[in-house]
């Protein structure tokens, strides 16, 4: 006689439940779009839709990265805000050699931060929330200490500029000529990143779609994506299946930090200043979008398409509520209510499908 307890909770595989489960967030987008059309005739104009996408493009890039972390069952990456700030500052430092030097330095710095996060969490099994929060504090302290409480402008260098920062004092020692570089033209190129519109569309939007598509392919079409799913569903099962779970978790955190560094570069360009406060709040906003998009915090379930849906939904809500003339406080309450509703409906549909164990 078997001692295994049977799950006797009621399940139902009707088509509505399946649709809600698969396309929940897009159903929400449809409803919001109908409301939008009723609110303003200009709602469906290309300008308005582009504005919505543009506004959430930075969030989209960060969310695409954190989605990897959540997909592999690690709850989130709370070091994303300071990764954005730190890599933005590093980009400004290296930008004086050329824009690409700045971007590459920022991405490498992001990868290193992610590697440290991933190693500690994957190898030592430290709680991801606690560790990444600690990492956020460490990075904040580092930036503030290195810059002595000031901020760095891409186009400005005073006598103090080359005595503070991460790499500037080293650069000045190795290459004294660096102080004579024409910063104004380099800064114009850097600041232009956030205000470049190839074919009338903001560059950052192309980047967001590029990042999301890359993320989608990695997550859904590669062996690594499958490994993420398995490790996300059960770390131990993944390990026993022969997957290098430490490496998988490390890669997920590296993806998160690399994407955060890309967002950090654009955000720093948009703000025209490198500072410790760039990117604040993006961690929780990204998690909100990811959960709205149907990704499970417990890992192993969800998709990059859903993440895009979550990000777009946040943009839509804000747009429609502003068009309705609703103030910021009410907007926050309504966003919260929609968030709870979507999560509840999703959870219920999963329950009905008998998938709430995953």
């Amino acid at each position: 006689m078997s001692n295994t307890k049977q799950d006797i909770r009621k399940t139902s595989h009707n088509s509505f439940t399946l649709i809600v489960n698969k396309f929940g967030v897009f159903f929400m987008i449809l409803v919001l779009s109908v409301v939008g059309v009723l609110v303003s005739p200009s709602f469906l104009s290309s300008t308005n839709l582009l504005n919505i996408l543009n506004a959430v493009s930075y969030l989209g890039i960060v969310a695409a990265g954190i989605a990897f972390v959540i997909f592999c069952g690690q709850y989130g990456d709370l070091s994303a805000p300071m990764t954005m700030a730190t890599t933005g500052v590093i980009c400004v430092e290296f930008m004086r050699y050329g824009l690409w030097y700045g971007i590459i330095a920022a991405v490498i710095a992001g990868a290193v931060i992610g590697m440290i996060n991933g190693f500690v969490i994957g190898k030592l099994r430290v709680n991801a929330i606690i560790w990444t929060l600690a990492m956020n504090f460490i990075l904040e302290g580092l930036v503030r200490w290195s810059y002595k409480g000031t901020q760095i402008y891409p186009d400005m260098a005073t006598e103090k500029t080359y005595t503070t920062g991460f790499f500037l004092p080293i650069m000045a020692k190795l290459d004294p000529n660096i102080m004579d570089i024409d910063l104004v033209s380099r800064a114009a190129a850097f600041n232009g990143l956030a205000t470049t519109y190839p074919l009338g569309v903001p560059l950052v939007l192309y980047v967001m779609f590029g990042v999301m598509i890359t993320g989608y392919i990695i997550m859904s079409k590669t062996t690594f994506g499958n490994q993420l799913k398995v490790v996300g569903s059960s770390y131990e099962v993944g390990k026993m299946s022969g997957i290098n779970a430490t490496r998988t978790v490390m890669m997920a955190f590296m993806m998160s930090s690399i994407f955060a560094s890309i967002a950090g570069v654009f955000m720093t360009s948009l703000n025209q200043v490198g500072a410790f406060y760039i990117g604040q709040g993006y961690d929780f906003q990204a998690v909100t979008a990811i959960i709205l998009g149907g990704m499970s915090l417990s890992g192993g379930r969800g998709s990059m398409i859903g993440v895009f849906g979550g990000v777009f939904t946040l943009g839509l809500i804000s747009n429609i509520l502003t068009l309705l003339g609703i103030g910021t406080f009410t907007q926050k309450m309504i966003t919260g209510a929609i968030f709870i509703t979507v999560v509840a409906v999703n959870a219920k549909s999963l329950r009905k499908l008998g998938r709430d164990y995953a």
Partner: protein
Amino acid sequence: MKKIFSLLLMVVLVAGSAFAAGQQEEAAGKSEAEAQANLKASLAIDISDVRGSDGQLLLMYGETRPVPPKPSDAAALDMWKLEYAGRQTKKVDMIPSPADGIIGKKIIMIMQSEHPYWTAVANGSRIACEAYQAEFEMWNPNGDLNQQNQYIDRAIAEKADIVLLASLDAKASVQQFKKLYDAGIPAIAYNMIPSDDAMRYVLAITAPDDFGQFKMLAEYMASDVGGSGGVGYITHIPGGSPYFARTTNVVEYYKENYPGMKTLDIQSPGFEAPKTKQVVADWITRFGDDLTCIVLADDSAQALGATQALEEAGRSDVYVIAAGNSKVGMDLVKAGKINAITFQSAEADGAVPIKVAADYFNGVDLGSNAAFYLPQAVITPENVDNYMPAQW
């Protein structure tokens, strides 16, 4: 024998006392003379050309607006209380000035947190202290109220001559200022206006006159656009004094003086460029050509977001004003993307309390409800170069 010994002892004691008294008198006379000399030297210090890193004069007071009578209307009274906080507080007897000069005095400045603005504030204080030849120490609690309270205790233990305090908490400031007062240390509240209860123990307040300068900026915009238009407001953090000074204050000013300046919408997207950009883009969709003016509570991230949304929509006709004179803000003014910003010198925010401290030690009567505001100005494309380079 005993009597002779007692007599001798008495003589020695009397002579000793007389000598000690003479010495003390001499010392007091000398100390008084030194104090007078110090005062004379302090008063002789020429501060007329002490300038900040932007080349602006640092040690001067702005205009202190007279306090109008209390309004009877409840809403107006709330605004009045915010705008003139601490200006009519019944204070305890202030610690009298030693009137022995600022030179050599130990000034301890306790700030709020680490931020580029505060770095510039500290820079202003340092420049001022160097000019006055005063000892200066700056302590930063980094946003931690407990740490700030510990610094108050430390300032008392170190027998500071005066403490400049930007309290982190209006309620806690009552105890902080009372503690300093009870220890016999005069204190100046700078950067922010403490609660009325705390003001009872405060020697003087020094702060930017946010309400006054925003009235000035509002007036500048209204006269430039002919007194009519549709205005969208992006606010500071709701509930704080800058929220009322930079939004409600302007709305009320227009209601009273320029009824043609209609409020279209008020939004609080925070200090984030992408969110501000979305709000302004949404306004353009919603109000179209009716949107003619934008009032921003910040000239950095908010200004960048707003100006980019306007640029993308090709709306160079919208008049934009903002608070502050950061580098980003001044660059935008110079580029013609923002029409005007307020001049709020961070360095003066740190230097003016030092000037007040100097006046106090130099025996100048500060008055019972001393309030010293920072100099005000409207920065426009025509005069922006005078304010460059930026302080932070």
